[in-house]
């Protein structure tokens, strides 16, 4: 009975997460417009975009392009449900990884040079994000004795005080995941000339719409991981929100860097920070 209840409640988080993801994307566009002294679209804009895409004509040049979006959405949704059920963070990360791999497979299945370049960059981006998230899972284990999400709740002091450097690494991973400058290398909205739309270039209409929803869910999942750093009271909401807003401001003041920079300096520094934090916890 209790299992059923947990499962039902966890499934119920999905529509909430979709609403939240779309709203965050709306806030992002509105805030960006304001920072550029424009008025910007209404907050509901992302929902209209996705609805329009879902109702457009299906154009498939390669079966992978039809299969990949469904897998990406399914994996992001499953990862979120597992998170809501307070499951094992390692399992959640592996499930979430599958979606990313299929997104890249779909992009690489087309001959378009834009998809090809962006697909390879996306692999590097996944490498950057996922390694850091696994280290965060390691930090969770060292401080609570378990990889389970539930371990972070009910601690006397927020994890942030024990994992400050890992949180810095998390903000880097969030920037990469949200495809924001300076690391919007693989699927940015604004790189028409060099990338068109990156990994999304060859996905059309409904498939693009599904990928958009999958991306919302991924961002929500990342923010949920961010909330583990302060898993009590309002801090649970405020800390990820602050990280989200910081990423948007950074997006507006930074120029796009190369993937070499992201890997060498960005990931390199974040990895060292995360490792120092882990050794400090152990020692």
């Amino acid at each position, binding site marked *: 009975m209790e299992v059923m209840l947990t499962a039902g409640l966890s499934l119920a988080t999905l529509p909430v997460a979709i609403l939240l993801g779309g709203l965050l994307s709306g806030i992002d*566009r509105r805030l960006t417009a304001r920072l550029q002294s*424009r008025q910007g*679209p209404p907050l509901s*804009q992302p929902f*209209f*975009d996705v*609805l329009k895409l879902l*109702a457009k004509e299906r*154009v498939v040049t390669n079966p992978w392009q039809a299969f990949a979006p469904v897998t990406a959405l399914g994996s992001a949704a499953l990862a979120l449900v597992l998170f809501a059920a307070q499951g094992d963070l390692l399992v959640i990360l592996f499930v979430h990884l599958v979606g990313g791999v299929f997104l890249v497979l779909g992009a690489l299945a087309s001959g378009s040079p834009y998809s090809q370049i962006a697909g390879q960059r996306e692999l590097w981006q996944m490498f950057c994000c996922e390694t850091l998230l696994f280290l965060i899972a390691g930090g969770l284990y060292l401080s609570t004795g378990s990889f389970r999400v539930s371990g972070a709740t009910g601690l006397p002091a927020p994890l942030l005080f024990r994992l400050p450097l890992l949180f810095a690494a998390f903000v880097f991973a969030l920037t990469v995941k949200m495809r924001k400058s300076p690391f919007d290398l693989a699927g940015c909205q604004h790189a*028409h000339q060099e990338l068109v739309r990156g990994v999304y270039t060859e996905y059309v209409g409904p498939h693009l719409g599904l990928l958009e929803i999958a991306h919302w869910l991924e961002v929500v999942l990342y923010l949920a991981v961010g909330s583990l750093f302060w898993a009590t009271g309002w801090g649970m909401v405020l800390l990820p929100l602050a990280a989200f807003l910081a990423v948007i401001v950074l997006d507006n003041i930074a120029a796009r860097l190369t993937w070499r920079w992201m890997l060498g300096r960005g990931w390199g520094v974040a990895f060292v920070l995360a490792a120092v934090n882990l050794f400090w916890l152990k020692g």
Partner: protein
Amino acid sequence: MGFVARLIGKARRSSPWLLHFDCGSCNGCDIEILACLTPVYDLERFGVVNVGNPKHADILLVTGTVNQRNRQVLAVLFEQMAKPGVVVAIGACALSGGVFREAPNVLGGVDRVIPVDVYVPGCPARPEAIIDGVLLALEKFREKE
């Protein structure tokens, strides 16, 4: 019309993604199109996004004359747009060939090659007129339903 159909119609009219193709214009009209996206006119308040990919576009903005060399490109771009989509011709050149209409390689306006839904006159067309044209194009979605 059912609720879902009305909702989809509203979404289409609220989320026009533009593809801008310079078919051989003097660049005057193109500068005015880009002006529409700047803070002064801010077309994004209507949900407009300037995309670089015909497959993602709902509205094709064409400037300039059609000639023997670029007619093929224009036709391919139109063909690659996922339905439903509308075409807006901008500036005297795109309407009829404009000052270049007598040139030996010029075919004339955009409607010689692809069907045009909205014509925006001017040389160059003013940003206000272009915004009017885009909003009129949104109404065309209603007719196409």
